[in-house]
């Protein structure tokens, strides 16, 4: 495939641009997206107490990888990307200490500075604990338990919020933090899964490269990142001949019951599917391209076709397979032709 000189997001990114006209295609996109989206996403990465040098180093490494991916791959402005750690002097990228006060202060700063619809992604990396029915994320000094985290996130108001707790014993966070406009990902299914987790390592990997872009739309949704991470964690345990001791959950419908296998068709996954991170490379359309009314029309038409595909897919179970495939193929051919037209006008064929 050849690309035009200008880089333009594919259908998925455009879906955000045209969210007003597309049923079911809403949701925040995280990325610089200066010309495309008004939302200004914020990413707070909290690296908790390591306990010993190996963990301290590994946790910070994973935190830094996420932090750098937010800055570099997704092009977020520096003031929107905050990394806290137990020892701020370990790396210049660390903005502050990840104790209770530091965390509360960072969240308060986002609450003060973020736009009313700016999405917020909070990622916890470290050890968790679960005792007496209470799940905690271990911080230097006093911990924050799941309910306290939930209360803290409530200070962000109506903003879309996602929390990714990669720690051991993080399962109870799914229920405690769940709520409207919230996506919660936990590395474990229950508080009883106390062993060291690998979730953060592969979540960082999902953010760093293109491998987790499972629907090839050029963007990375939290649902995709979750699916990728879950699969790679399972593969890691299998290759190491270890019993899988962490079973991740995703909760985004607010009922507090996380799903091990969420999907965009629900019950969990439909919000996370549209909680997307847009690589900077896709989010920078040239002004002259967006001024071309034909390209805009073509993009709108292609986006509408994508929505038709989604609708058709939703009816698949009740359709004759041959008829389904025939209709699907017709829609896809139209998408392909639109992409060619867009590319021919210098708008890039797709993601």
């Amino acid at each position, binding site marked *: 495939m050849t690309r035009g000189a200008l880089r333009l997001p594919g259908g*998925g990114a455009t879906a955000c641009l045209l969210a007003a006209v597309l049923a079911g295609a809403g949701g925040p996109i995280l990325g610089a997206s200066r010309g495309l989206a008004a939302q200004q996403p914020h990413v707070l990465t909290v690296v908790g107490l390591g306990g010993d040098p190996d963990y301290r180093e590994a946790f910070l490494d994973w935190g830094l990888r996420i932090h750098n991916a937010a800055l570099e791959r997704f092009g977020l402005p520096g003031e929107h990307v905050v990394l806290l750690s137990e020892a701020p002097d370990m790396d210049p990228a660390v903005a502050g200490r990840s104790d209770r006060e530091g965390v509360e202060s960072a969240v308060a700063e986002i609450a003060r500075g973020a736009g009313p619809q700016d999405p917020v992604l909070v990622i916890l990396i470290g050890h968790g604990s679960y005792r007496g029915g209470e799940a905690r994320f271990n911080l230097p000094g006093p911990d924050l338990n799941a309910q306290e985290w939930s209360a803290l996130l409530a200070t962000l108001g109506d903003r879309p919020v996602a929390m990714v707790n990669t720690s051991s014993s993080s399962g109870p966070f799914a229920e405690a933090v769940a709520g409207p406009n919230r996506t919660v990902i936990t590395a474990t299914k229950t508080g009883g899964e106390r062993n060291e987790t690998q979730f953060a390592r592969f979540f960082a990997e999902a953010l760093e490269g293109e491998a987790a872009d499972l*629907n*090839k739309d050029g963007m990375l949704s939290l649902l995709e990142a979750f699916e990728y991470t879950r699969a790679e964690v399972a593969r890691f345990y299998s290759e190491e*001949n270890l019993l899988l001791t962490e079973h991740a959950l995703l909760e985004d419908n607010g009922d507090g019951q996380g799903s091990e296998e969420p999907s965009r068709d629900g019950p969990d996954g439909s919000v996370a599917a549209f909680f997307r991170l847009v690589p900077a490379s896709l989010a920078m359309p040239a002004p002259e391209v967006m001024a071309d009314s034909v390209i805009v029309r073509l993009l709108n038409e292609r986006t509408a076709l994508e929505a038709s595909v989604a609708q058709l897919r939703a009816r698949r179970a009740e359709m004759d397979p041959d008829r389904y495939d025939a209709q699907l*193929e017709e829609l896809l*051919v139209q*998408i392909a032709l639109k*992409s060619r037209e867009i590319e021919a006008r210098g708008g890039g064929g*797709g993601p």
Partner: protein
Amino acid sequence: MRRSLSRPGPLLLAVTVLVAAPLQARVAVPQVPARSSLEAARAHLFAGRYDEALDLLRPMTRNGRGDPAARSLHARVLRDRGRYEEALEVLGGQSTPPDLAHIRGEILLDVGRWDEAEAAFRASAESGARDAQVARLGLGELAFMRGSRDEAMAVFDSFIDLYNGAGTLDGESTMAVARAVTYLGRTSPSLFQDALRAYDEAADKLPGDPRPLVAVGDLFLSKYASPDAYDEYRRVLEANPRDPGALWGRARAMEFDGNPGAIATAEQVLEVNPRHVGARVLIARIHLKAEAVEAATEQVREALDVNPNSLEALAVLAAAQHLAGDRAGFGATVRRSDALNPSYPGLHTTLAQVSADTRKYREAVEFAREAVRRDPRAWDALGVLATNQRRTGALTEGRRNMEAAFAGDPYNPWFKNTLDLLDTWASYRTVETEHFQIVLHGREAELLEPYVADVAEEAFAALSARYGAQPPTPIRLELYPSSADFSVRTLGMVGLGALGVSFGSTLVMDSPSAREAGDFNWASTLWHELAHAFHLGISDHNVPRWFSEGLAVREQRVARDRWGFPVSPVYLQAWHDGMMPPLSRLNEAFVRPQFPQQVVFAYTQASLAFDWIEEDYGFQAVRDFLAGYRAGRDTPALARSILDLDAEEMDGAFDRYMRERFRNELAAVVDIPSPLSATLEERENDAEVAVPGVPVLRDLETLRARVRAQPGAFQPRLELGQSLVAAGLLDEAEEHLREALRLFPRYPETDGPLRHLARIHEGRGEIRQAADALRRLGSLNENAYEVYREEARLRRTLQDVEGERDALVKAVEVFPYDPDLHARLAELHEIAGDTGGVVRERRAVLSLEPVDRAEAHFRLAQALVANGDRREGRSQLLRALEIAPTYQPALELLLQLRGGGS
């Protein structure tokens, strides 16, 4: 059954007096003085001091007279020692009084004098003697032995009324109740619990008497609870280590558990009672299982000398005669058994089991069917029938019979395991090919199907061409992702260590996912098992095990040089040291191995025999052997006619072949101590050498000295080389590793010279030499998964497409569950222009459920289109775009397929 109210009366008091001393004797025999000679004699009996007991009893029972209690005890002691005729005399011979007649009846049963036994029981029962109930039970048991089962069951059933209706029963009568209820358990399995309770009650009433405890052990064993049975026998043997009943029970429990000490324990029984029929039959049965027909016959004939009417002994004799091909003798034995009990199922059940043990599964079905015809409630026979029906393809009927068997014997773990496994069959998928029905678990069917189907059909074609004949088709090939399930499918129990089993045209094996990567080569195993199907089919299941196993390994090697059991230094040492039987007796190493490794070595040795036969006589000789087995001829006769060698000559010729072929290797291994003869500690030390990749940390000077002392010995060279590598002295290591390689060029293990040389080369940047060393090692070992992968990595560095492809194909052959490996192989096939190979590998990637399914579907679509399958290509493309509707390369391919491509 309900417990009756206790009504102490004179009978109970009498029993109490009788058993008081034994109670004390059992607890602490040496310390408690006997209160009378009789009690002292009983104490001696219960402690196994038979001679002392007899010394005390003899004066009390002289001339067939004396106190009945003393005569009863005297007869019991003599009976325990197998002195049945003397025991009968002590009881009074033909003039035995009614109150001792039931004991006479039991002893007469021991020696097969059924009519006299019946008369004795009847005399006791009709006299109203104290132990008349025991005699009544004897009559019931005799009726059962004669096949009058309804009559017998009516007698047994009356014991429930006896128990519920009478007051307190004495110990002997309670024992009789327990025995009767045990028989009733065959129609009402829950009654086994009642039998157990009755035996416990009897044990309370007969303190110190071993019989109730032995009976409880026997009951546990009959319900497959050997640990519980051992506990009961142990309780008896703690008081009397020579108790023949407990020893016999322990021997049977050991046989049940596959413990090789069973024969020795049975022989302990014979030390106490050389005429113990049960022990002789047990030993004979074990010999028969090991196909030692002569030894089995010898034992069973001794048993029949004691009891010519032992149905169990006749069953084993018939089986031995059947195995030996003695049709006249077999017919006579069956007629002899039928004359005693025309509906006895045990003879045909034994025949069925022996037939299955010797791989004659259809014959096993017929024998088991006959057993069930004779006794529809012979649940063991029904189970044997069901098992062998499923082995021979009668799956529906087999399941139905297994369910019926389990309903009749719900304690049977084989039946339960099998039915549990059958419940999982809904998760399996059957794939049909030209000659096979391949049964794969649904979760891996898509992945394995193309590989398994290809290897199966390739093997079928190759073996058909070699043998000029085919087994019955379709061949059912079942692959289980759980070794436990494979084991249950094969034996009904977990724990089978084998990788695959051939029942003829039904092959059952571990799927590659059943074991860790590198544990086994499924394709090689498949080939091996299919070879058995040919051997069994062509010989009509008459081929001996050593022949079929050796030939199957030979077929593996013919198919791929790296397949099959390798010739290891340890094997050659064992062969050289005379630890392996000669060729003419090699079957013994398979059916009764003398040490754990002997079976593995026997596979190797048998396969080498076919190298020799094929090299010296041509493959037609092998075909002639198989035809000869089909005609019912044995190995010595066939060797004479085909090889023109008698057994001794054949052994000598093979011996010369081995010495010539392995002259150099033998020189390098035989002058050092064999690990097999080393102490355990030494072997553990040696074990560290055998762990690939683990540095061997030994004193280098010691190792150097060993090499100086034995410069032509392989093992010291290898160990020194390994240790030098670990110490980083690579140049010196290389010298010794190369010498080790020269001494034993086909050393197959992955800790050997080639692996270390490869690492040394790679460390020096000599990538091609490193890759070549790994390739050479990979050509000697069918399981070297990591070696294949290492070689592939190096070949990739060298941009050696063909070399990398070849290495990865071998890796997939061992363990096909790594998606990265398939993806790379697809790329290599693509470069090589093998479009079919690309499709296969892309399918494999997709079947492994990668997280990026859109990509996997798209890649497969591309491969299919390139391979000319536009229709499925389109379908796969739609699946990709269904997930990722804006996936640009996929959209472009879609337009191409629609004719709009640019």
